[in-house]
């Protein structure tokens, strides 16, 4: 009970800075998610239409390499190129999120059976009609699950932005570790979870609405 009241005091004293960290966290992670979806999903769809397997595997390999770079090294590389703060954090996280989105969308599109595509062709659909009326609706649940998984990853990875001066809830966690304050660590962690779970719920809703439509 005493613990709870102490924790509430911490909130009442620090709420403005806590909310500021949370706002920074949301700003960074949502920017990354939107950009990542805007880049990866069209690219993956385009890749399923590509004839050359070489270029496909080249793109996958590049995305793979980005994901294997240790995060602290990635941030260190970013500084001379883009400086400190929001931009390098977003770019670094974007590079990490390419692969999971690319892979999920690509395999979702590949899962559309060739019989359905042939049938659509037989009905006289053009390439674009086929894409929007047949392939995308069939692949949509796969694409969406890729987006949901990646979004949760990105929100957790965004804690790293604190290492490069971009703020976010990672700042609160690291400050708690350095300053021997369990409340800060707990608050930073729990708020990141709250953001991730709420976003996942919202995306789930969107998925259902689109499916019904």
């Amino acid at each position, binding site marked *: 009970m005493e613990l709870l009241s102490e924790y509430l005091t911490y909130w009442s004293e620090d709420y403005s800075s806590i909310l500021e960290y949370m706002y920074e966290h949301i700003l960074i992670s949502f920017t990354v998610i939107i950009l990542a979806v805007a880049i990866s999903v069209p690219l993956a769809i385009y890749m399923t239409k590509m004839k050359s397997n070489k270029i496909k595997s080249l793109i996958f390999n590049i995305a793979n390499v980005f994901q294997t770079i240790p995060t602290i090294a990635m941030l260190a590389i970013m500084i001379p190129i883009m400086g400190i703060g929001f931009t390098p954090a977003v770019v670094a996280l974007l590079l990490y999120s390419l692969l999971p989105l690319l892979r999920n969308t690509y395999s979702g599109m590949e899962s559309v059976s060739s019989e359905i595509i042939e049938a659509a062709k037989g009905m006289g659909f053009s390439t674009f009609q086929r894409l929007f009326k047949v392939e995308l609706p069939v692949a949509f649940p796969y694409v969406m699950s890729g987006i949901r998984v990646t979004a949760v990853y990105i929100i957790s990875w965004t804690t790293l932005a604190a290492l490069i001066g971009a703020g976010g809830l*990672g700042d609160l966690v690291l400050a*708690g570790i*350095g300053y021997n304050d369990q409340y800060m660590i707990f608050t930073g962690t729990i708020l990141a979870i709250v953001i991730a779970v709420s976003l996942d719920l919202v995306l789930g809703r969107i998925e259902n609405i689109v499916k019904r439509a």
Partner: protein
Amino acid sequence: MKIKSFLVASLVALMFLITGCGDDSSADGGEVFTAAAAKNTDSKINVQILKSLVEDQTSHEVEIVEDLPASAQIFAGIDRGEFDFANLFSGEVYNNYFDDVEYSTNPDKTLKQAQKFFGEKYDIKWYDPVGFINNYSIAVNRDFAEKNNVENLTQLEEFADEMVLGTDNAWIERDNDGYKGFQETYGYKFAEARGMDVALMYEGIANGDLDVVTAYTVDPQLKEYDLKVLKDDKHFFPPYEASLVARNSVIDENSEIDKIVESTVGLISTEEMTDLIYEVDIEKRSIKEVSEEFLKEKGMLD
């Protein structure tokens, strides 16, 4: 058949490996102790010096656990009996551990309080300082300081509203000795304050993204990037004097180790430690090699 015997052999090897880990006697029949160090290189050098001395003069061995994130994790390990020795700093006593500690920037008082409070709470002996001091400090580019004739933190006020501060993630949130306290003591703040990884902080000031950083006084990057530490003319930063600590139960049973740790009191000055860190961090030499070379120079190791 071959696969089967290979499997059996690897299983046996694995069992030896696992049981080997649980064995805590050294090759010479002594005990194996554990020493803890945080992420900073000065802590690692200091426990390596302890290890080299103990292994040279006794039959015991010392295993080093390093890169612990902060002092709280070291104390947790001491409390659980996992760490027997550690490198710690006197100023930690103000780091949110005790409610009844009296904040002071006086080095002797800080040391006495650290020895008393931590000594009682964790049943450890907090030795007198090794000699080097790893304070927080505020540093700027030397060119800037010379051009504008800035020597101390009071003089920096005039430029502060156009400067971006880079600091570790904890300093912004610290009460007494952090950014809040700094603003109260000096009466100004910087245009922007950003928390980040310490290694990246130096990249940032070298790169021109930052104008001011909170450096530690032993950091060799101060030399590497030609930064100037400004004088803390209002004595705001608390002293962080490094000390070795040992669990009382260990040194009570091994008085020879107690003597060895006592022999490191006053051994390394701040300048000497900065040089040693420079060798490790910038010249990329091993901590063991650099520490033992230093001990040989001091005539404490053959």
